[in-house]
């Protein structure tokens, strides 16, 4: 080989030296023991370190979020089918006529109820074709329209110390069709993102019941499980509220 040229990238001969055979044996024994002890120590400390370490990603996800970074938008030709992912049964549409959205935790101190007409007439409607990503790994590109969550926050400001919103749907059902209210935690910073909508339309039509008629959350910077269908109540709070899937072992920030 051309070791003589000694270019920067050329492999050097390995440093060699003579040792007493006993030294080699002792070093081998020592290192095997050290590596073994390291493995045992790592296993022993796992129990105390793991519960914290396993949550690192929530903090990383939060640090990655930027209110100025927009999610990609697509053209109508790129739209893909979006399955009805109601975990259990799709609710009976009989709730829709009497539906209203209740706002709690407002700076005014009073609770506000809005029907779908007052929402769509009061705020301007924005359209977007964005990807909805499920925690399971599948995703779909869909065409949405609705009011900006930020506009609602502007019109009905939350209490000053509010960092979180509890987004709730009381019409959700479990697999056997029994009432199973669905609730997630949503940081107000994400709610203020310009692409976070309170969607009223899907593919140019009013939201169908399987996609959360008459109003659903569409936060494309979050996993699909935060995109609550058929929202019935928004509550602004200072501390992170309960989250349906976090209580079932999933992460709770879920920023993507």
């Amino acid at each position, binding site marked *: *080989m051309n070791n003589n040229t000694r270019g920067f*990238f050329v*492999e050097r001969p*390995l440093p*060699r030296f003579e040792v007493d055979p006993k030294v080699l044996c002792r*070093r081998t024994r020592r*290192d095997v023991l050290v590596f073994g002890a390291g493995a045992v120590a790592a296993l022993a400390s796992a129990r105390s370190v793991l519960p914290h370490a396993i949550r*690192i990603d929530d903090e990383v996800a939060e640090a990655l979020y930027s209110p100025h970074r927009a999610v*990609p938008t697509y053209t109508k030709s790129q739209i893909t089918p979006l399955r009805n992912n109601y975990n259990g049964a799709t609710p009976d549409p009989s709730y829709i006529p009497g539906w209203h959205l209740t706002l709690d935790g407002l700076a005014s101190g009073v609770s506000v109820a809005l029907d779908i007409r007052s929402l769509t007439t009061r705020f301007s409607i924005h359209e977007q074709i964005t990807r909805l990503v499920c925690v399971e790994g599948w995703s779909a590109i869909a065409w949405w329209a609705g009011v900006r969550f930020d506009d609602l926050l502007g019109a009905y400001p939350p209490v000053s110390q509010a960092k979180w919103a509890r987004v709730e749907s009381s019409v959700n059902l479990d697999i056997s069709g029994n009432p199973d209210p669905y609730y997630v935690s949503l940081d107000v910073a994400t709610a203020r993102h310009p692409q976070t909508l309170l969607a009223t339309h899907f593919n140019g039509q009013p939201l169908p019941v399987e996609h959360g008629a008459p109003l659903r959350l569409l936060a494309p910077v979050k996993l699909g499980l935060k995109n609550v269908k058929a929202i019935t109540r928004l509550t602004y709070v200072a501390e992170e509220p309960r989250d349906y899937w976090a209580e079932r072992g999933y*992460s709770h920030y879920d920023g993507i």
Partner: protein
Amino acid sequence: MSHSTPPDCEPNSTSTLPEQPGVLVVRKHHFLVRWSHWLNVPILLGLILSGISIYWASPIYQHKPDPNTGNVDVAADIGIWICAHVPGLHHYSSPPDWVYNQFSLGPGMLAVALRLHWLCAYAFMLNGATYIAGLIAGGGWRGLLPRRTDLRDAFRMLRYYIGFPLAKLTRHRWQHPCFNTKYNALQRTAYFSVPITGFLSAVTGWVIHKPMQFHSLAAIFGGFDAARVWHFWLMWVFILFVVPHVILVFADGWDTFRGMITGWSARVTRAEATGNEQ
């Protein structure tokens, strides 16, 4: 790889030769390389087991629902086939879950699997950085760089490995190709590719995990769905590396194994030691 027998490490042999000058050793691996190498064992195991559990939730390879079972998952088909054809598995309780029960945390473990996968992924990235630091600090990176002669030498090594079992059976001499580099061409290609595979795994992992924040990165791999396919097959590169890697280390013997623990290899001849490089 040289062919000299490693000096015996047993105390008996040293005590019978009290005046022997000593064992010639070479320093092969920096300690950061050795530590990160071994840490990869639990980390990669955790990543693969949890990764396959995550795969279960939304398999990449799906077909139209089976008319009888409604199954769409190719991995479930493989489990069904194995349980139907492998003796002793005919009464397996849930054949579609066989693959997931053997090679993952199990079906329906998405929440735990995601948490474990992310934890291992952060550990894997830190460990990869440690490995690179060790390669730089110990100068070992030079030994991994591809050479112009690699293709020809890789074929020589492949010929050796393929002919080896037959030569053993027929008791023919079967000479190991001679190289005076740290690694032979096949090893070098493998050890050069694995860090790249690790890097690509990490990048595609980020793309899948944060497809909105890293959407421009996703475009490099052909988008979110394509990145999932990349990530899946990058796992297979690791598996296809690890299996022969472990077999060959055992076949090669104690000195190679010890080299990754102590950093020293005693497999060096006196002739080489005089400093006359060939």
